[in-house]
Structures are given as structure tokens and as C-alpha cells.
């Protein structure tokens, strides 16, 4: 059985704006890129049964999650004419207002990046074993379920 090196797409804690800036800057040497599309997931202060969410504690089945992130990235490359494609998802606590998901695709032209970022984001929500405990100020929690 051939062993394929699986990229680690999981990041401990929130994804910072600085990480995003750094990632964008890294793409400036690729002068065949004409368009980037970036999706960011941010933790909302939803009200659930009268109580406000203060953060989400994410856990993941890491080995499988990284395998599925890789599959999704490969599917995106086979469907769309991409130059680059990156995915990062948080584990651990991400407070409201902070970022938990960063999907970044680049291509020569815009249509491909729009389609690819959307495809990857939908596939992540549906297929990646990441779990979220929505935390309240009083220490209680509920489990988040993607629709």
C-alpha cells in the first residue's frame, strides 16, 4: 500500500487575520494567478433558548478530517482549473467574532475561484468530521449541527 503524505489542515485555536495576510502575500510570486477567492467562517454570538453563545470548542477526528480535507482539495483541483487551494480549520476554543475556517483558492480567472471556494466550503460542512460544542457564559453547552 502506498503511503501518501497527508497535509495537516487543522489549526489549534482561532485563525488570525495575520495568518491570512501571510498566506495572501505568499501568492504574490505566482504571477500566473489573476484571481483569489477566500471564504472565512466566523463564530456567531447566536442566542439559543435565551442564552448567548460565547464561543465554540471544536474537536475533530483528526486523521480522518485531514484525509477528507485532502480528498476535497483534490476533487476541487480536478473539477476546476486552479493554481492553488488551501484549507485551514480550527480545533479547540474559538470565541465569538473569531475565525474558525479559512478556504483560499487561486486561479488565472475569477469564475474558477468562485466555484472552487464554494464547492470546498460546502463539502467541508457536509463531509469533514469536525464537531462543535457551543459554549454559554454559564458553563453549559449545546452541540452544533450543520444544516
Amino acid at each position, binding site marked *: 500500500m502506498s503511503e501518501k503524505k497527508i497535509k495537516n489542515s487543522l489549526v489549534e485555536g482561532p485563525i488570525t487575520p495575520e495568518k491570512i495576510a501571510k498566506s495572501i502575500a505568499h501568492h504574490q510570486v505566482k504571477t500566473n494567478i489573476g484571481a483569489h477567492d477566500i471564504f472565512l467562517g466566523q463564530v456567531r454570538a447566536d442566542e439559543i433558548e435565551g442564552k448567548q453563545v460565547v464561543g465554540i470548542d471544536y*474537536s*475533530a477526528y483528526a*486523521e*480522518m478530517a485531514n484525509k477528507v480535507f485532502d480528498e476535497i482539495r483534490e476533487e476541487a483541483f480536478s473539477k476546476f482549473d486552479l493554481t492553488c487551494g488551501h484549507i485551514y480549520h480550527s480545533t479547540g476554543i474559538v470565541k465569538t467574532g473569531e475565525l*474558525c475556517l479559512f478556504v483560499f483558492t487561486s486561479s488565472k480567472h475569477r469564475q474558477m475561484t468562485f466555484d472552487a471556494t464554494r464547492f470546498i466550503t460546502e463539502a*467541508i460542512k457536509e463531509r469533514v*468530521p*469536525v*464537531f462543535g460544542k457551543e459554549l454559554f457564559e454559564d458553563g453549559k453547552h449545546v452541540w452544533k*449541527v450543520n444544516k
Partner: protein
Amino acid sequence: MTLTIKYFGMTAEGSGKTEESVHSNYSSIAELKKDIINKHPKLEKINFKIAANQTIVNEDYLLSGDEEIALLPPFAGG
């Protein structure tokens, strides 16, 4: 066979465990699932999928050796 059972989120909460080893000769996932729920009755009310060696499988999937089984509650990524 020795199966490693992994629990996440709601299923970890319901079983009070994140991982355990099970030594027994189950034929299918359905059989294993029944046994797990008997041991951890709180899991009965929880909606979960099962992965064998990091791939989601049906209840009629046949267990063939030392596999890694994961009980996966609804996904919440993004």
C-alpha cells in the same frame, strides 16, 4: 479481533469515553453497534454515523480484522 472504538463530541459525552478497545468477534457494524449501545445506553438517543478505518460505512459493513471504528455525531465544521 481487537477493535479500537473512538468517540467524538456527543458520542464521547454519551459514553463518557474518547476511546476504548473491544475484543470480540463481531461480523458486522450492526452487531457491534448493538453491543456498544447496550454498554452505553445514552448513545441510543444520539444520531451518529460510523467510520471504519476513517471511511464512513453502512451497518452491513463486514468487520474483517483489527479495525479503527469511530462513532461520529453530526458534523459542525465551518
